[in-house]
Structure formats: C-alpha cells, structure tokens
C-alpha cells in the first residue's frame, strides 16, 4: 500500500516542488530524482503484487494487468527525464522557450506522470476519467510551449478534440453508472470497476451498448484511433520531443488500458445477447482501419516527428485489433506489444530529438547523412526503426508474430490486410528513413553532445525481449491475460 501511494503521489509532490523550485539548474536533476524514486516505488509495488495477487484499498486497485503498465510508465518516465535534462537545456539555450517555460515544463511533466499513475491505479471509473482529462490538461500547455503559431494551433486542436472526446467518454461513464444503479445493492459503488466486474453479467445490455460506444469514441480519441486521430500528429510534432516520447509511449497506452477495462465490463453484459462479441468487433474494426490508414499516411510525410506519431497510431491500431480479437494468444501478444512498442517508440523519439538537434530542423528533406555525422545517433535511429518495423531479433517481431498467428487461428482472412498493412507501413518508414541516415554529410552539419544512454537501455531491453521473454514477465503477462480473457496462455 505504501508503495502504491508512493508510486501515485510522488509525482504530484514532485510537481508541486518543481512548481516553486527557484534554481532551474537543478530542476532537471530533481526531475530525474523524482522519476527514479517513482520507478523504485513501482518496482516495490510490483513485488507486492507478485507476492499477494491484488493490492487494493482507498478505491485504488492494482492487479497484474495494470501493475506492469505502472512499472513501464515509471521506467519510461525515468529514461525520458534522463534524456530531457540535457535536451531541454539545449532548447533553453536556443532561446525557444523562457525560464517560465522551463518551470512549466518540469512541473507539467511530473503532473502528467501523476495523472498517468492515477489513471492506471485507480479502481473508480470516474476517477479514471478525471485522470485522463487531467492528462490532457497537463500536456496541452506543453504542446504550445514554443509559442509558434503551429504550436498554438496544434495545442488548440489537441485540446478541443480530446476535450470533446473525453466529454463523450464522461457521458458513457454516466450511462454506465446509470446502468449500475439497479444492479448493485449499493448504488454509490456504481463506478467501482471491481464491483461492476463482479456483476457484469446483470448489467442491462442496451444501456451498456450505448455506454460502450460513447466510451470507445471518447477514449479512442485519446488512443488515436482513426478517424479521431487528427490531434495526435499535430501534438507530437509541435511539442518538445520528450513530451512526444511520453505521449506516444505512455498516454496512448493508458487510454487503451481504459478501453480494455471497459470492454471487459461490456463483454460481460453482452454475453447473453445475440451479439456477444459486439465490443470486440468494434475494436477490431477501429484497429484495422487505424492500422491501414496510418500505414498509408507514413508514405506522405515531410516532418520526422509526425511520421513517427503516425507509426504510433499504426501500432495502437494493431493492439486495438488484437484486444478486439480476444483469446489468450492475441491478448498476450497485445500486452507484449504495448510493452515493446512503448520502449521502442520512446527510444526512437529520443533519437529523433538528437537528430533534429543535429540538423536544426524537423523536415525530413533536410535531415541527411546522420550516420556519417554522428554514428551513434544514426545507428540508433536506424536500429530503432528496424525494431519498430518488426524485424527480429527485436521484441516487436515477437509480439507481431503472436498477433499474426492468433489472427491466423481465429480469423484467417484478416491476416491478409494485416500483412499488406505491415508491408505498406514498412515501406513508408524506410523510404523516408534511408535518406536521413545514409549518404554524405551536408556542409556545416556538426555532431552534438547527445546522451544515448536511454536509447541504449530501451533497445537493449527490446532486444532481450525479442530473444527470450524472462520468466517473471511472461508470468505477469500471462496472469494479466487470465484477468482479461479468463484463460491464461501458459
């Protein structure tokens, strides 16, 4: 319990301190320290969960499903903090932001972490909603941090779209609560996920169906499902790079986590009707569309960060599809994919940060000859993209392998669009990547002082996961799978 509270509230405290902390020099270090503390706490929490199943209380509930997301979130936030200290320093020197901006950045970074932790660990769907909305509010100012017209425009779109989406999600939540009124003996518990899950079978299907639509559209906006995705590339490309890393690596995961939790409820309630898998089908549809459309988007990119945000949409689509597919194998694969995608994608964004720093621009046409300029960055980008494109021995291949085989077993014909999508997306990524990393150096391009440690750690982990999945992790994922679909894989 202690660990849980630490995990959730350490970032909040950190944010408050950072908001008032006067000397900005140490703010970056302090940021790292908080994240490290947070990570340690999450590890302790994970141990607790591993020993005694579920840690619950005070409307918090941490089980095997969200504990690994908690650890992942804390970890990515740590590495991103490590990366962001020098990077934001460079941003400050380049004069793109002010001291106030820096303070805002650090505060909001931790605040965002707090909302993530809260959303993941709470048992109350209302609080979940509040947290996700809070995440929007925390990040929207960071998107407009640079105050360029583009940045403001991106922030506005982000704000409006996510605001609307999240409002719809709230309506869904209300309907859920409404449906729970006449089922639970204690109506005020009507938003407690665990309580609802217990009685999912009795929830009125008609209401639940409507509720799920609202929730799916709402949280789906945050996941970045096509056609509610439009905010995502804008926000990613205009915000500071560490922000893009955590958005792609964490926020999307959390939103998807919410969707899956709710799907579990809806599945329970729809089980009796003539369309028991309606929710699953919706997810599959959204996932597939997002996957294919994003893959096509990749072909016509001019901005490197936009490109990778589209690739995030693509992978989110893949996971959504897998969760919709259901079944232990697919779910296991999707969980694994969440993990490896977050690691790889945040690593890529870190590298992209350095790359844009080297080239002084985000325009793909002007980033050239990275390998010759700074081999570490160039190879980091190249290998990162190879990993995200699903090449072994990196972990993404493993999860995609599982997803494909799961599809093959349950819905063979869906494998065709999946394969086409993978090929198209791959071509889209590499046709833009190659000119950036290869070739000779444009004149006046200098190597920069880059901190590739996070990238090294992330890609190392992904490589490890690709070669073999460690015992404890496979057990985690397996128990999570049991939780979600009822039956485990191992």
């Amino acid at each position: 319990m202690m660990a849980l509270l630490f995990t959730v509230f350490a970032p909040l405290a950190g944010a408050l301190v950072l908001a008032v902390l006067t000397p900005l020099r140490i703010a970056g270090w302090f940021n790292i320290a908080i994240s490290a503390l947070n990570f340690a706490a999450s590890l302790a929490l994970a141990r607790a969960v591993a020993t005694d199943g579920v840690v619950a209380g005070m409307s918090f509930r941490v089980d095997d499903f969200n504990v690994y997301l908690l650890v992942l979130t804390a970890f990515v936030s740590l590495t991103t903090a490590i990366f962001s200290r020098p990077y934001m320093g460079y941003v400050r020197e380049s004069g793109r932001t002010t001291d106030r901006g820096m303070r805002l950045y650090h505060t909001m970074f931790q605040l965002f972490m707090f909302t993530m932790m809260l959303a993941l660990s709470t048992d109350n769907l209302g609080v979940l909603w509040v947290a996700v909305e809070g995440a929007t509010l925390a990040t929207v100012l960071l998107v407009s941090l640079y105050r360029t017209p583009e940045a403001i425009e991106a922030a506005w779109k982000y704000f409006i779209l996510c605001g609307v989406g999240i409002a719809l999600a709230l309506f869904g939540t209300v309907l859920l609560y409404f449906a729970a009124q006449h089922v639970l003996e204690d109506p005020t518990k009507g938003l407690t996920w665990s309580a609802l899950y217990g009685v999912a079978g009795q929830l009125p299907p008609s209401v639940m169906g409507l509720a799920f639509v609202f929730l799916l559209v709402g949280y789906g906006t945050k996941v970045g499902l096509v056609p509610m995705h439009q905010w995502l590339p804008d926000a990613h490309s205009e915000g500071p790079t560490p922000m893009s890393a955590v958005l792609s690596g964490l926020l999307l995961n959390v939103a998807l986590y919410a969707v899956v939790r709710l799907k579990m409820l809806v599945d329970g309630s729809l089980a009796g009707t003539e369309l028991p898998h309606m929710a699953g089908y919706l997810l599959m549809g959204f996932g597939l569309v997002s996957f294919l459309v994003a893959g096509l988007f990749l072909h016509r990119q001019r901005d490197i960060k936009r490109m990778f945000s589209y690739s995030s949409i693509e992978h989110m689509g893949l996971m959504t599809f897998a969760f919709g597919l259901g079944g232990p194998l697919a779910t296991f694969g999707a969980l694994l994919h969440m993990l490896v995608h977050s690691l790889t994608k945040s690593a890529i964004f870190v590298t992209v940060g350095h790359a844009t720093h080297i080239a002084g621009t985000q325009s793909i046409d002007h980033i050239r000859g990275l390998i010759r300029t700074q081999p570490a960055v160039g190879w980091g980008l190249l290998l990162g993209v190879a990993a995200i494109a699903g090449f072994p021995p990196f972990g993404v291949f493993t999860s995609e392998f599982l997803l494909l085989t799961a599809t093959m077993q349950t819905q063979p014909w869906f494998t065709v669009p999946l394969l086409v999508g993978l090929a198209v997306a791959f071509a889209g990524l590499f046709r833009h990547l190659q000119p950036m990393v290869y070739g000779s150096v444009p004149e006046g391009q200098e190597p920069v002082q880059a901190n590739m440690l996070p990238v090294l750690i992330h890609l190392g982990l992904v490589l490890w996961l690709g070669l073999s999945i460690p015992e404890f992790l496979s057990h985690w994922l397996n128990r999570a799978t049991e939780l979600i679909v009822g039956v485990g894989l191992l």
Partner: protein
Amino acid sequence: MVELLPLWSAGLAVGLALTSALVALFSGRVVSLLRILAMPLFALAGLAALVAGLSAMVQGDILTAQLPLGLPWLPWRVRLDALAGFFLCVIGVVSFAVGIYGGGYVRGLEHGRDSLPVLGGFSGLFLTGMLLVVLADDAFMFMVSWELMSLSSYFLVALHHDQAANRRAAFLYLLMAHVGGLSILLGYGVLAAFGDGFAFEAMRSSELTFGWASVAFVLAFIGFGMKAGLVPLHVWLPEAHPVAPSHISALMSGVMLKVAVYGFIRFVFDLIGEIHWQWGVAVLAVGSISALMGVLYALMQQDIKRLLAYSSVENIGIIFIGLGLALLFLGTGHKMLAVVAFVAALYHTINHALFKGLLFLGAGAILHSAHERNLEQMGGLLRRMPWTGAFFLIGCISIAALPPFNGFVSEWLTFQAALQSWQLDSGVLRSLIPITAAVLALTGALAAACFLKVYGVAFLGRARSRHVRRARQVPPSMRAGQGVLALLCLLLGVLPTFVIALLNVVPQQILGQGLIQATSQGWLWLTPISPETASYGAPLVTITLALMLIAGLWLFGRGIRRVKRCDAWDSGFAPPNPRMQYTATAFAQPIRRVFGLLFHIDEGVKLQPDGRRRYQLNVNDRLWELLYLPVARGVERAARQVVRLQSGNVRTYLSWTLATLLVLLWIMA
C-alpha cells in the same frame, strides 16, 4: 561424445561467427583487427560448419537440442539432420573460402570511407543468421534467424550508401525480403493452425486438406522464391548483389539463395506432408522461366557483378527445375525418379554455391586490382593476373555446364531425371517435361555463350582502358580463397560417385529412399538409375583430357620447337588496336536480336555535350512496368487519397468525431 560432434561443431561455428562479429566491432579503432582476427575467425566458423555438416551426413542420424531462448512455451529447438548437414556444408565451405579471401580483400577498404565495424560485424551476424536458419527446428526460431539473415545482409548491401542507387537497391532488397518473410510466416501459420503449435514435429504431424496444403505451399513458394530470386520475384537480386562488397556478394549469391532453397525443401518436402503433383508443375514452370530469363538477362549485362547476379537467377531456376521434377514424380508415386531429381537439385545447389562463390571472388579480385566492374573497359587480364584468370576460367567452365567440371554433373543428372518422364501415366505431364528439358538445354547453351563472353572480354584480348592495363596480381590470401573453390569445382566434377554416395543419406531421411545403383559399377562410373540406362565415366574423361593436354604441350611445346611470336595476322589488315576488339555488347548482339521481345530495349545514337555522337543501349527488365510500378503507383494513389483526412480544419475533425459517434450509435441500437 563423438556422436554429438556435429552439434558441438555447429554450435562452435555459430559461436565463432558471433565472435568474429564482436571482434570486428573494435576494428573502428584498430583498423587491422578485421583483417588479422575477424576474417580468420570467419573462416574458422565456416570450417566448423563444414565439419558439422560432413559429420552429420556421415553419421546419418538426427540430433536435437534446446536453447534457453525463445518464447516461454516455445523454446528454440535445434535439429541437425542430413538435410541440415548438407546445407551446413554448403554454407561452411563458401564461408571458409570467403573468410580466407576476405583477409586480403578488406585491406583494400581499410583506408576507404566505409566503416569496417559495420562490414565485419554484420558479416558475422549474416553468417550466424544463415547457420541458425538451417539449424532451426521451430518456426519461431526459423523466422527470427531468417530475418536476422535478411537484415544483416541489408546493412551489408547498404554499406556503400553514398550513391543513391545503392540506397535504392538496399531499400528494394529489404522491402522484398520483408514481404517474403511475412509470406513465409503466414505459410508456417497455416501449418501450425492444423498441427498443434510451431514446433516442426507438430507441423509434420499436421493433416491438411488439399486446399489448405496448397495455400501453405503457395505462400511458402512465394516467400522462399522471393528470397531465392525466382522470376518474377527476382528484381531485387540484380540490384542488391552487385552493390555489396564482393566477398559478401559471393556469400549472398552463393549461400543465402541456397538457404532459401533449404527453406523450400524443408517446408515442402519435410513439413507439409502429402505432396501433390500440381505443385510440381507450378515449380517446374517457374523454374524453367527463371532459368531462361535469368541467363538471357545475364547475357545482356555489361556490369560483371550484375551479370553474375542474373546468372544466379538462372541457376536457382535449374535447381527448382530439379525440385519441381522431384515433386512431380513424388506426387505421381515414382519415388525412385523423385530421388534422382532431388539429388540432382542438391548437387546443383552445392555446385552453384561453389562456382558462383568462385566467380564473385574473381570479380572482387578484378575490382580490387583494376577498380573496374564494367566489362567494356576490361580485357587482357589473364596475362596481368594469371592465377585469378585460371581460377575464373574454371568457374566459367563449371557454370557453363561443360565436362569435366561439376556444373555438368548436376545438369546431366537433371536431364537423366527429365528423360524418365516416359514412365509417367499422364500424357500431359509426359509431354510437359520434355519441354522443360528443351528449356534446360537452351539455358545451358546460352550460359556457355554468356560466360564465354565474360571470360573472352575480361581476360582475353587486350586491355580496353588504361587503369585495367595497370592491374596487378592480388595478394596470396585472395588467390588462396579462390583456389579452394576452384579445386572443389574440379573435384566435384571428377569424382561425382563419392559425392553422391555422401548425398544419398539426405533423400534417405527426407524421402525414405536413396539412389541404389548410383555407384553399382564402381567409383569410375556414375550410373544414377541403372548402368544400361545411363552412365558417365567422369574420371576417365578427365584423365584422357589431361593426358592429351600435357602430352601435346610438353611434346610439341617444350620438347621440339619453341613458338615464335609475331603480329596478329587478322586477314592481313593493319595490326589491330584494342578499340577494334569485339565488345561485350557486340558479342551479345545476335542473341539480343533473336530474343528481342523479352527485353525492354532502348537503343539509339545520342548527341554528347562535346558534340560527338555516341551509341547508347540499355536493356531493362520488362517486369518492372508490368508488375512492380503499378503496385507502387497504387500505394501512392491510396496514400494521396487517405491524406485528405488530415485537412487541417478542426471543425472537419470534429464532424468526423460526430459522424463516427452517430454511426456507431446507430449500429448499436
């Protein structure tokens, strides 16, 4: 202990390959490290693989092991049977030669711009990937090693990434490798869905309906065919192979394509289970087309490495003709004949590995000392680099399928298999196979013409450019590397009976039968089916040829009179100068005219900036605009349409949200 020798040395090979990769990583600081340590380790890895393969084939029993890697419920399984052993030999022998050769070759790169760690590191990984593919005993490990192979070779292709053309080649290569990999994965998926799980035993036990089996077969055929470079999936090959460093090209053309062949054999002959003759027809057709198109395109090339790459397409085609015959005979229940065809295919596999490796090493030697890839600039190299010239000649004779070298033996065996088609019951098949035989014969003749052109233009005559005239002998290590392969070409050509006796265990394990009478007349006579059907006394032919040659040269040459030199007679014209020689283009012109409709030729006289007129000719692949460009355009068009989603107007976005919401609500209610 001794019965585990194959596994141990296979493991050793993998370990050595990885070590070589690891060592090479530090060659950024210590430049000579690659040459002194990494390449020898590479050669040793090849040697270990060779030992593993040979011992596995000699023992003829199946060894398995498990690695602490992979998925929790699907650990990496390793299996070393005769088939794997054979392909370990193929990989090992070429890698060994390449390792020796590379020591000298990379010296030329030490002061270039290309990063040595990348070269060495990925060479090691490349070898590791190929070894693991052959050893894998479950689909997951297979795919991982397969893609590892593709990825590392991609980085090697992209090594000289300063020219945009090379980048394009690398991209095309990786894209097609990726697509092929996915298709293979899908094929395994079908098998796994019917058997339980991705271990190969499980797949062997799977019972498939004809429909699903055919689906799996087609997927595998596409996937492996794409890697092997079968027409029409070959376009990446002539782009990618030439741009890699030459010893890597030797590995790619000589070995990697064979790994694809291995995958195909493993999948179709071993895993699918019951075999249907219709597959055989498909494979036969594709194989014949590949063989013919490959050699015709090879004839049209002027870039020597590109030419070699195209000829790889041809030889892969020949291998697949053999495999197709085997499938066909199996499907119609003539196991004995199937074995002949199968052995022929295997024989040609190792042969092609040997002489294509040898030829690429030779091309590398030319590149190394003359800095030239374009045939039109070469000439008279035989007198400047006699050793390379001699080895290259051996390679040319072998690949042109002329006795007494190895290429002839495998082609002979393929013919023998084809000639047994009178035993089939269906008239259609009986009349189909002879046509294949005709194609094979035509291919052989054209291949002879092609490599005559290469050798005549590159090594004979007189130098056509100054830098070629300055070419010098290459360092001994490079000569040794070529020598090993050349020697093997000769041995496999002269002593086919021993080779077949060794090969026999593979069909015995895979098809449950071997060639019974192949060596019934003793080691002098190769009689694959029966002595009265066909026989070939390779040793006798060789001995006679050698005796006569020596006698002639010694008797006349040394003994009695020495040969005086004079100007060329040339029908009494003025002494010819190098520019009057026949060029490669001119050499191929008659054939180009006859087979013109297969190529996309644009020929003409172009006005140069300096006012001189210049004859220009380029021969392109028809398949580009037939197959590939439409796909690319389609994707582009789709992308352009989809992009409209991101119109930039927030109200449009909101209306999308609203519309989605309403539609979903309508669906739900």
